[in-house]
C-alpha cells in the first residue's frame, strides 16, 4: 500500500469530500494548522471560492452559523484551529448543536463537523494548549473523533462528513508529519471501531490521538526490555468500542491509559472508570493513567515536558504495571 504523510492524507480527504458532495462547505481554513503545508489549502480555497469561507474572529457565531446551515441542508466543516478557541463557541456547541436532534424530538438534524487541533503543541502555554474532548465527552449528543494515523485521518474525516450528527474532529499538530500506509481507494472508517495499533501479550496500553504514536515509540523501547505491549486506539470516543478495549485488557490483565487531556475528569478517567466497573476481577495489577498533570500548561519547555504524558512517564507506568 502507498505511504503518505498525515497532512497529505488529511488534505486528500478534504479534496475528496468537497468534490463528492456540493453540500460540504468549509468555514475557516487552518486544517493544516500553521504548518508550512498550510499553503496547500490555497488550492482548495481557489477551486471552491463559494464553498470556503474566511469568517471573522467570531467562533461563537460562525460555529452557530455552521450548525444552522447544517439544519437547513448543508454539511459544513468548521475550523477552530487551536482547540482552545472552541471555548468561545461553547454555548453553540454544547447547548445548541448537541441538543438539537434530541430536543426537537428527532425532527432536526445538525450534520456539522467541528474541527480543531488539541493539546500540547510546544510553547502554546496555558491559553493555546487545551484538549477540550474530555469536557465534550461529558456533553451527550456529540460524536468525538480522534485520528492518530494517516489512514485514520482520511477514513475518519470521510465518515465525519457523512454523519448526520454534530461531530468533533479532534486533531493534533504533532501528527501532521507522521507517515503511514493509506489505501488508494476511498475507504471510510466507521465510527465506534477501535484499532489495535500493536499486538502484544503482556500489557494493554489504551492510547488516543498523538499519544498513540508516542506509545508506539515507547513500546518499541520496552520490547528491548522484554515487555510485549499491546496498543489499542479507540479512534472515536463517541461512539466508543468498549468491547475491543476490554477484550485486550482481559487478555493481558494489565492496562495503562495514555491520553493528553488533563487528568481530572479526563478521557483516561472515563476509560478507567468503565474498566474498573467491568473488569474489576480481570486485572492482575491496578490500572494506571498517564495524562497531562492537573496544572495549567506552562510555556517554558522543560516545564511543559514535565506535565506532558511523556515517553518517560508512559514507560514508567508500563514497567510499574507489569512488575
Amino acid at each position: 500500500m502507498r505511504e503518505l504523510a498525515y497532512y497529505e492524507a488529511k488534505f486528500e480527504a478534504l479534496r475528496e469530500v468537497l468534490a463528492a458532495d456540493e453540500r460540504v462547505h468549509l468555514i475557516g481554513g487552518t486544517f493544516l494548522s500553521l504548518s508550512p503545508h498550510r499553503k496547500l489549502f490555497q488550492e482548495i480555497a481557489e477551486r471552491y471560492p463559494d464553498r470556503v469561507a474566511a469568517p471573522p474572529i467570531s467562533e461563537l457565531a460562525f460555529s452557530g452559523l455552521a450548525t444552522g446551515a447544517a439544519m437547513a441542508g448543508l454539511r459544513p466543516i468548521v475550523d477552530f484551529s487551536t482547540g482552545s478557541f472552541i471555548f468561545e463557541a461553547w454555548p453553540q456547541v454544547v447547548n445548541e448543536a448537541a441538543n438539537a436532534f434530541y430536543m426537537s424530538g428527532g425532527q432536526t438534524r445538525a450534520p456539522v463537523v467541528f474541527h480543531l487541533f488539541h493539546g500540547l503543541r510546544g510553547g502554546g502555554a496555558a491559553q493555546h494548549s487545551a484538549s477540550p474532548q474530555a469536557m465534550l465527552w461529558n456533553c451527550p449528543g456529540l460524536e468525538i473523533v480522534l485520528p492518530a494515523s494517516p489512514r485514520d485521518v482520511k477514513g475518519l474525516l470521510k465518515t465525519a462528513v457523512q454523519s448526520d450528527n454534530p461531530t468533533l474532529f479532534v486533531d493534533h499538530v504533532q501528527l501532521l508529519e507522521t507517515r503511514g500506509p493509506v489505501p488508494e481507494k476511498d475507504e471510510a472508517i466507521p465510527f465506534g471501531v477501535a484499532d489495535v495499533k500493536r499486538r502484544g501479550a503482556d500489557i494493554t496500553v489504551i492510547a488516543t490521538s498523538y499519544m498513540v504514536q508516542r506509545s508506539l515509540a515507547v513500546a518499541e523501547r520496552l520490547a528491548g526490555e522484554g515487555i510485549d505491549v499491546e496498543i489499542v486506539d479507540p479512534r472515536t470516543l463517541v461512539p466508543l468500542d468498549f468491547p475491543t478495549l476490554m477484550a485486550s485488557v482481559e487478555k493481558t490483565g494489565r492496562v495503562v491509559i495514555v491520553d493528553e487531556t488533563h487528568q481530572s475528569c479526563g478521557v483516561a478517567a472515563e476509560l478507567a472508570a468503565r474498566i474498573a466497573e467491568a473488569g474489576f476481577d480481570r486485572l492482575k495489577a491496578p490500572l494506571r493513567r498517564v495524562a497531562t498533570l492537573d496544572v495549567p500548561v506552562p510555556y517554558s519547555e522543560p516545564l511543559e515536558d514535565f506535565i506532558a504524558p511523556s515517553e518517560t512517564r508512559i514507560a514508567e507506568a508500563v514497567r510499574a504495571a507489569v512488575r
Partner: protein
Amino acid sequence: MLLIRHFEERLIALHDDGAFRGHYHAYIGQEATGVPALCSLAADDYIFTTHRNHGHLLARGADPGRLFAEILGRRDGYNKGKGGSFHSAAAALGFLHTSGVVAGILPLATGAAYASKALKNRRVTLCCFGDGALEEGAAPEALNLASLWKLPVLFLCENNGKYGAGRASGSSQSASMAAYPLTDLPRAYKIPAREIDGADANAVYATVSEAVEEVRGGAGPRFIEAQTVRWPGSETNWPTVPAPTNVSLAWDVNFVPDNAREWYRLSDPLLIFIRELIEGRHATREEIARLEHEVKDQIEAAARFALASPYPDPEEALKDVFAS
C-alpha cells in the same frame, strides 16, 4: 390573535392546575407582531424563535392541541414531550430549532440563511428574538456575519420593554442596553433597520412583508424592532391573568383591576385590532363575539386532547440522542 390569546390564558390555567412544571413565557401582548410577521412568509421559509415561542408557532398554523401536549410533556407533543415550552419546534412548519438560550438563535438563523443562499432556494429565514438578546455577544457577532456575507435573514427584535424576572425596569429600550435606539446596533453593522409599533398589526404586516421581499431578492439582511408595552400579567416568570380576555373588553374595561386597566385600555394589541375592525366596519361586535366563542371551543378541545395524550414511555428518554 384571538387564538393565541386564549391559548396562553388556557395554558396559564393549566399551569395553575399543576398540569405541568417549571416556569414558562406567554406571548400575550405581542400578538399584533407575531401574527402579521408570520403571515408575511412563504410556506417553505424558516423561522427561529425563543423561550417566548407559542405565538409564533400558532401564527404559523401549529395545532394548539399538539402544542399544549408538548408543553405538558406528552407523547403527542411536537417534540414528543422532549422539548417543552422553551423548545417547541415544528420542522414541517419551518421551525427547525427553538432555543431557550438568550440570543442562541441569532447565529443559527444566520446559518440557515447561509444554507439558503448556498442552495439558491430563495428561502428567507425569520429570526424572532427579544430585546434582551442584543445584550449577548452572540447577537452582534451574528449581525456582523449576516451583513458581511449578505445573507437572506430578517432579524425581528420584539422589544416588549421590560423583562420581568429580576431585571431593572426600563423604558421602551432594554433596561440593560446602552445602545438606544436598539437599531443603532444593526445600523453600525450596515444592516438597514426600522422601528415600528408592534401593537399596530397593519404597520407590522406592511413593514415585514416589504423587508421579507427585499431579503428574498438578495438585498442582504434586514432588521426590524417591533415595540410593545409589556403585558402586566408577565411581571414574573409565572404569568398571571389580570382579567380573562373577552372581546367585550374592547369596549368595556370595567372588569379589569385598576392596576392593569391602563394596559388593556391603551396597549392591548388584540383589543386595539378589534376596535379597528369594528370602527372600520370590517366586522360587528356580534361577529367577533361569535368568533371568540368558536376559538374558545377550539382551545378547550385542544386542551382536552393534550390532557388525554399519554406520557412517553420512560425508555423513550434514551432515543433521539443521535440520528440514524
